[in-house]
């Protein structure tokens, strides 16, 4: 178990600034998700923690120890990559064994450890095959098994589920969480999928353009987004600009489940044209075009039936828990 600290970490690739003076603490046993759109610097940050990239400026500490001169394989990290990163010329067992042989484990210990992690990740007989011969889900399990084998103190994930189909994603997501909780490993997980972030994390870091916009537990992030980008990225309707505050635009942010459509326009906070009503599994989504932009509202089945007649007409909107946020 390890505490990770980043102090004023910046990274430039030539002219491009990938990370800008990041300071961040990751506590022992945290499951921290770095969330943001592609190009926001989250993968760079993960690579710097792993030691695969060196920061242009700043320092990384593991349990207070400066990691500057420590190569990746001596940092006690296990990493799972987007495509798994399995060596195609080795079987899955040989892949798992690679990190153990590199650490000079004895043959017996290696075999014992392989069967442990194969059982832990439920690989079964797939472990005898080559990476190309197994399914995408098995490949990610194998990558996890390989990362766990040398008993790392930190687990790093770089969008490991992004190439899997939806059901498999759910299943593996659950297993990753289960394993992390059982082994109590400090974990950093990179994704651009906010569902995944809320499901897995104990802490979320929202990033954009190399900077951290907000850090908090999932509930904090969803209930109290600090600015319009965070609100928009985690699923809010962002309307506006509605006002100016000290040279900055102010916007109105509201969750889709907190926007209520009302037929009494005069008493409503806002009006807009009802564009469409669409079925979304357990509920319906109504799309309303207001003068501040489009807004989605979650409605129930009975409401949907009634509102259908008003498509293309003006309706009223009442916004619960709406927040005024700046850019």
């Amino acid at each position: 178990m390890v505490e990770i600290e980043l102090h004023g970490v910046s990274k430039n690739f030539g002219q491009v600034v990938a990370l800008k003076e990041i300071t961040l603490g990751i506590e022992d046993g945290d499951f921290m998700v770095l969330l943001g759109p592609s190009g926001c610097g989250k993968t760079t940050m993960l690579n710097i923690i792993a030691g695969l990239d060196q920061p242009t400026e700043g320092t990384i500490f593991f349990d207070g120890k400066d990691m500057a001169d420590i190569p990746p394989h001596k940092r006690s990290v296990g990493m799972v990559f987007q495509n798994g990163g399995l060596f195609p010329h080795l079987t899955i067992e040989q892949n798992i064994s690679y990190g153990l042989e590199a650490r000079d484990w004895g043959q017996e210990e290696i075999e014992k450890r392989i069967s442990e992690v194969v059982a832990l990740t439920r690989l079964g007989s797939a472990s005898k095959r080559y990476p190309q011969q197994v399914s995408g889900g098995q490949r990610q399990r194998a990558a996890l098994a390989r990362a766990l084998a040398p008993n790392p103190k930190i687990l790093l994930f770089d969008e490991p589920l992004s190439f899997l189909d939806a059901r498999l994603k759910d299943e593996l997501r659950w297993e990753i969480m289960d394993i992390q909780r059982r082994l109590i490993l400090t974990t950093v997980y990179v994704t651009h999928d906010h569902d995944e972030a809320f499901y897995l994390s104990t802490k979320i870091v929202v990033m954009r353009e190399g900077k951290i916009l907000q850090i908090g537990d999932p509930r904090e992030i969803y209930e109290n987004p600090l600015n319009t980008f965070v609100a928009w990225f985690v699923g809010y309707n962002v309307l506006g600009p509605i006002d100016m505050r000290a040279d900055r635009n102010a916007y109105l942010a509201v969750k889709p489940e907190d926007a209520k459509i009302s037929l009494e326009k005069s008493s409503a906070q806002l009006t807009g044209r009802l564009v469409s009503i669409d079925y979304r599994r357990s509920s319906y989504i109504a799309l309303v075009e207001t003068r501040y932009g489009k807004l989605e509202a979650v409605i129930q089945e009975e409401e949907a039936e009634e509102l259908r007649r008003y498509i293309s007409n003006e309706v009223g909107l009442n916004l619960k828990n709406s927040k005024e946020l700046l850019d």
Partner: protein
Amino acid sequence: MARYSFPGRRTFRAIVIVPFMMPSIVVIIGFLSLYGKDGIIGSAFPLATSLSSGLSGIVAVNTYYNAPLIMYLVSAAIERTDPEVEQASKIFGGKRSLFIRKIIMPQTSSGVASGVILTFIYSFMGFTIPLVIGGPAYSTVEVQVYSLFYGFLDFGGAAALAAFQMLCLSALSYLYIRTFLSRAERIRPIGATRIRLAKLDFRRRPFESLAVSLYLLLISTFLFSPMVAVAYSSIHDNQNGMNSLGAYGAIFSAATRLGFSATGAILNSLFYAFMTTVGTIAVCILASYSSRRTLRRPFLYDLIISLPMTISPITIALGLYISLEPIPPFDMIWPLILCSHIMAAIPLAMRFLTSSFSRIPRELLDAASTLGSRTEGLFRVELPLIRGGLVSAAAFAFSTSLGEFAATNFLYAGRYVTMNTAIYQFLRYRMSAAASAMAMILVGFSIFSFLVFQLLGEERSLGGD
């Protein structure tokens, strides 16, 4: 042609590269025995003898040599065009001519341009071809340096001329690096890299089928007639018109008369080829490995890959020779020759290795470094993954050394005879049967390295991405 599939396509594409891997002296003998005064065609059609002497001869042999290179570069570029791009163009209702003009041509132009510049460079610094078939009137800078040095013992003049040539070549290779390395990288396709080939069915496309067949026939004749001619003249005795294997036996007596051992020449050639392969691979792995991780290609890398293009074999030999002034002791000569062979082999070998290294997904390298040390990763992950490129590079280094003549001839001082210098000696003393026979043995080894290259290596990387 790169866009059609037909029986034997792969084989044809593979053997197109054969002449490129043939020692130039062998090709010259092929041309001489085909189009020479006593040659198979030359004796029947006197007009054809222009293909084996003088300016036209030099152009003919250089064309023969470089045509496969350009064919390879262009067809590799055509095949790299993204099939989705073609589909998209079809959906937009693009006409075929538009597709070729707007899509195919821009994507292949850098391939063509780099082929043209490379051909120019190779011909510009040609030595063997102008020396043997050009005669004094058509000598290149390279030949001049050689004859200033050995003919007139004008060391200063030779060095100055070599420096001048280096300047010209630097300019050319700068151009080459600009067109090839930079452009080819920028227009790399995003999606899949193999086009779907149109099946060439005679009933459905009679015209194209005929055109392609005719083209194949012509190209094959053009490419293989010199080789066949060498084989023929090695067993055919011009004096009595009989066919026999006598010339192969005569190699030994002919060599003895010229003061060297034929077996020695063969063994020397193989020794150099083997050592060159080892040395080149070692240098190239170090160089391409160290330059791999950086985002921008370091200057050193460009320098190493272009150095042997800028410095001709004779210049290398001259430099090596002068560096051991006054006269290199005899036991220093073979390492010098080896050095010159390795320098000649580096550019292509380097191309194979860097393109293989760069094809390893970054994920795998990262995975290897989180799991174990860099050396561990190099030997257990990277080298196994680039095995194909490694074999290709080795085969090319081997055949480069087998075919190297210019620098060897400059340095060997009559002592470390290789098959190439032996053939040249036979030619000088008009022992054409022995020359042909020795050339055939050389062809045998070249074909061996070609087979290794094709069967175990990565055929698609010459054009290099």
